[in-house]
């Protein structure tokens, strides 16, 4: 599923965040998030996906209906969603 390295702590938190979702919803969400976060990491010239890429993805690439849920899920596992840039929902 991942095509480049992720900060392992961040990957674990992402897995934790999506673990309450029903599997069919989760698979779609995960593939969107992974693809977009990796693209953002590459855009800024990083070889590793980091927290700012994930949070920016959640804020800008998630469908509007799922965006706040995703941000809430990230907050629940200890990710600071205020720190990264992006369009506030």
């Amino acid at each position: 599923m991942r095509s480049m390295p992720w900060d392992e702590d961040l990957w674990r938190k992402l897995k934790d965040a999506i673990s309450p979702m029903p599997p069919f919803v989760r698979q779609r969400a995960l593939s969107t998030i992974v693809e977009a976060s990796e693209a953002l990491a590459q855009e800024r010239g990083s070889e590793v996906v980091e927290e700012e890429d994930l949070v920016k993805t959640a804020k800008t690439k998630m469908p509007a209906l799922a965006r706040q849920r995703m941000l809430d899920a990230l907050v629940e596992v200890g990710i600071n969603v205020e720190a990264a840039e992006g369009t506030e929902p």
Partner: protein
Amino acid sequence: MKATAPTLVSFAVTRECNLKCKHCYSQSIDSPHPRELDTAEARRLIGQIAETGARLIILDGGEPLMRSDIFELVRHARSVGLTPVMGSNGTLITPEAAMKLADAGLEAIAISLDGADAETHDAFRGLQGAWEQTLQGIENIRQAGISFQIAPTLRHGCWEQWGAIADKAKEWGAKAVEVFDYIPAGRGEENAEFEMTIEERRVFIREYIARQRAEDEMIYRCVGLPQIWVEVEKTVPEDEVLTKFVRSCCAAGTRYCCVLYDGTVYPCMVLQKKAGDVREQSLVDIWQNSEVFQILRDRNGLEGKCGRCDYRHVCGGARCRVYAKTGSLTAEDDACWFSEEELKR
């Protein structure tokens, strides 16, 4: 800690029930509570549940079908944008009731089944013949085209039957099996001998994981045993965790709360620490500001082994059992069998 929207809220619409189960968390009996929320109050509460941002409302009880306005409440939940589901003992689901639930917009129903045979189920549920009535209710639900899941309670002495119950659930066409650990809360406190031992829980969890790994369609969930997720992460390959396993517990006060028939708000049906009263405050206000919820949301505030545990954000210990036994929301879960070394990620 900032309140995020709950994913689901359960509303125990009545205390009244036609059964007398030994574990009943809501202390249900054969009459409504004298301060039961009336139809107008129940509708107002459902509106407030939608305002919290929740998507799913669970209408349970008591037995929700004892309430004559239940179909109106289901319809109202749908009209305010919630997805209504129900928890029922199944005995009152006639063909007519099932069709009315479908017409009202009920999305799914969880039917309690506490034994793989009539003798075990009826003894626990307090009514001879309950098993037969429940099975008929399941058939009526199926005929009405409503999705359903089977919900057994695990207990000392007969927890091993859960596998046979799950087999039956699959045969009947259930979408999920949601297993409840026995928690000594409500009437369950009077029958604490049903609580499983730590070793029984460990064996159950291994069986549960093996079943989910072998299953592509059926979804298993478990309430009251959040340590399952630790075992899942330690023993299941990542791709299977991501595609098959659902973490459903503990969400008390973080993604879920419960409102009783008299308006009392609890973090969970089995974590009975009052967080507010919807007759005095709106549910939105309670959800966002209740001190009880603030404490439960701060997993860094957990004590002892739970506080040092690297899994505290995904497990946090069975807060319900801890509260029932110690009166504390933050004490360590002394029924956790993992060593401190095992709780490092």
